[in-house]
């Protein structure tokens, strides 16, 4: 009887999921792959994995957070590791509350480090996912921002004007301006930058979070 951990690897990019499968199999795990949330749900029913390694962005269709929520609901004992380029869930418009309890969060750059990846899988499977939370450890300028400042900068990077941001957040334009001034300060953007400050802040956001959708 085979007692290897069973891993479901979910990534919409076939190249990534194939490489991941090869890497994990080489490490002695039983691995199945899926390229969408729907396929993963289907595979999970027959494969009954111990761990799901899920990308946050799964292309068209439900995203990684949706999938993790649905999988955990169907099978509460399942451990979840997010393997993604999105360095902070907040940058994808989610909060840490969207992460299932005990989930790990690894950046894709770790994919080439089999030892680190293996450790993470073993620990998360034992319910110690809090030790593998790159989203909490990664140091980037956006960490200095409060939730509301981050939200406003995200909208800024989305090409929104102050008026539009105020409308979306249900606040005044003045409040948005004040939040932005504090956000610029926290990001270390010079006060004399004028309208370029907006571009700089948006770039800072994109450096860390990627392109907002």
């Amino acid at each position, binding site marked *: 009887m085979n007692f290897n951990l069973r891993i479901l690897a979910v*990534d919409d*990019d076939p*190249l*990534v999921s194939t*490489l991941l499968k090869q*890497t994990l199999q080489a490490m002695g795990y039983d691995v199945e792959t899926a390229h*969408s*949330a*729907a*396929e*993963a*749900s*289907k595979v999970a029913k027959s494969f009954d994995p111990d761990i799901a390694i899920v990308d946050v*962005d799964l*292309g*068209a*269709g*439900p*995203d990684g*957070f*949706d*999938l993790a*929520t*649905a999988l955990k*609901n*169907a099978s509460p004992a399942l451990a979840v590791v997010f393997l993604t*380029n999105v360095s902070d869930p907040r940058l*994808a*418009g*989610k909060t840490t509350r969207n992460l299932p309890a005990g989930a790990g969060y690894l950046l*894709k*750059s770790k*994919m*080439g480090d*089999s030892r680190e990846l293996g450790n993470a899988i073993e620990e998360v499977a034992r319910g110690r996912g809090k030790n593998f939370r790159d989203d909490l450890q990664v140091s980037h300028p956006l960490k200095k921002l409060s939730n*509301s400042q981050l*939200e406003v900068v995200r*909208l800024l*990077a*989305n*090409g*929104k*004007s102050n*008026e*539009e941001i105020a*409308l*979306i*957040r*249900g*606040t005044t334009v003045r409040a948005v301006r004040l939040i932005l001034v504090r956000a610029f300060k926290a990001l270390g953007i010079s006060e004399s930058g004028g309208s370029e400050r*907006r*571009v700089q802040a*948006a*770039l800072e956001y*994109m*450096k860390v979070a*990627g*392109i*907002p*959708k």
Partner: protein
Amino acid sequence: MTILRGVIANSSQFSGLKETWQRLGRIDLTSKPVIISLIVAHTLTVFGFEIGRVGERPLFTLAIALMAEVLFWGTYLTLYALQIWLFRDSNSVLAKIFIIVFSNTVRTMSLELALFEFGLLDELRIADRFLGDQTGILMLLIGIAYIQVVVFDLGTQELELDQAKQRLSENARASKSSAETADKLLRAKAQELLGGQLRAIAKYLKSAKAPAAERLTNEIQDLIDSRVRPLSVDLWRQLERIEDSSTSDSGLRKSRWPRKVAPASDFRPNVIIGLSGLNIFITAPGLSNWPLAWSFSLWMLTFPVLGFVLAKLYPKTVTHSTWLGASISGILGLIAWLPSILYLVSRSDDFPELSVLAFTSSSVIVFTSVAVAVWSSFKRERLEYLVQIENLNAERSRQLAIVDQAVWVARRNWSYLIHGTVQGALTVAISRVQLAGQVTPELVGQVLQDVERARAALDEPQSFSQSLDDVWPQIAQTWDGVCAVSHSTSAEAASLLATSSATSTCVAEIAKELVSNAFRHGKATEVDISISVDAPGDILITSTNNGASVKKTKNAGIGSEMFSELTSHWSWKNTPKGPRFTAVIPVAPNP
């Protein structure tokens, strides 16, 4: 008067009267329309009433009337100056009514006294004519106030029209500016994001002496830097078209005056008799007696009946300039007033002055008919402006919503391309190198293949549009066993969505978000989504679920932000069966 003012001010039923009352306060007693109207009204009463009732020495009567007129204007202007000087308030309605009524009383008394003193009248009739004179002059003032109200509103409307145009231009400019920023930032991000990975791969391939390394990495860099753009050429054209149409006047018609009106709808017998009837009825007893005044009032009832028939008979499709329309309205008034005139003339044997009343009452009716027509014409102009502004706003909002949709889809596609396909391929290449630890020809070949895939994806970007038919099974499958998703799409909506891949993608995104939100926030176990056609060219999404009620949170979050961006409007409502969501999405036809 205080009670009357209170009633007018507090009752919504009197909103028109309240408006008129306020407008009366803003009438400038020294303005040209007021002065000319008073002179014309006085001249008409002199020729039609005073000279007629005196019957002899018309030139002398005219001279006395001129003297009374001078006294009127002396009193009028003095009281006006006193009002300004003493109270520094030129807007008091009561003060204005007092000035008009008092000056007119001075004119009436001086005229009557002079005519009596010079033997042109047998007896003084000051009390008899007092009410008729005062109601007449107040009616004139109210008429001017009414017309000024609509002229003022029309002016305000023109201002609003200009502001609406300005807002639309600003929105179009903002949309273009947002798109430009998005384009610039997306490209900058792609350069930054992929540049590091490309350099790392190039370094490895160089050390492995792979011959195609430099060419491949340079090609990718070139594609990112200058050839692949996040926003399509079609989208830029669309944005420029909207900006051009917003800055030109083509969509808006400026005020033209006099404009075309159909006099039938401007001729309102009930309003006309309501405004002028009191003055005519009050004048009648002074020139005859009360029993005759009452019997005359019964004849006055023929006016609205006959007027109604005349208005009905007049073809509504025929329009004229305001002046011709107002003239026709006056003529209709005169015809409808004819039975009353005939009655007055028939009784003039007993009361000779009734023939004078026949003339003056006709003048009052004609004046009121013309004033109502002009007032109505301005009011209609105003309403047309409102409709024009609303239509224009709706159309431009729709256009901007469609552009926002396109920008959103372009940004998402770009994200999939760069983050997904291209970055995925490069990440795999780097990971292969890291995992392998040593350089082998096989590994170099795999890495080169990965880089080639990234180059191919950039060279011919794929379309990431999704059809609803593909997305429904994915949503249902993902949430299977957790949340049951049912859906329906009307045949009309399906064929409309088939014309637009962008809108189809947006509807799919919204459907996905609706299910996710219903489970995450409300722990719903059943979600139903139906898609139909709202107005022509607009898709209506309605969703209900059995989850917890939606709380109105200040921070809207990514879902509602996306809804705002992709829809014309959307709303949540908590119903006894659970939260209900509705949204309208304009359909952006494929370019």
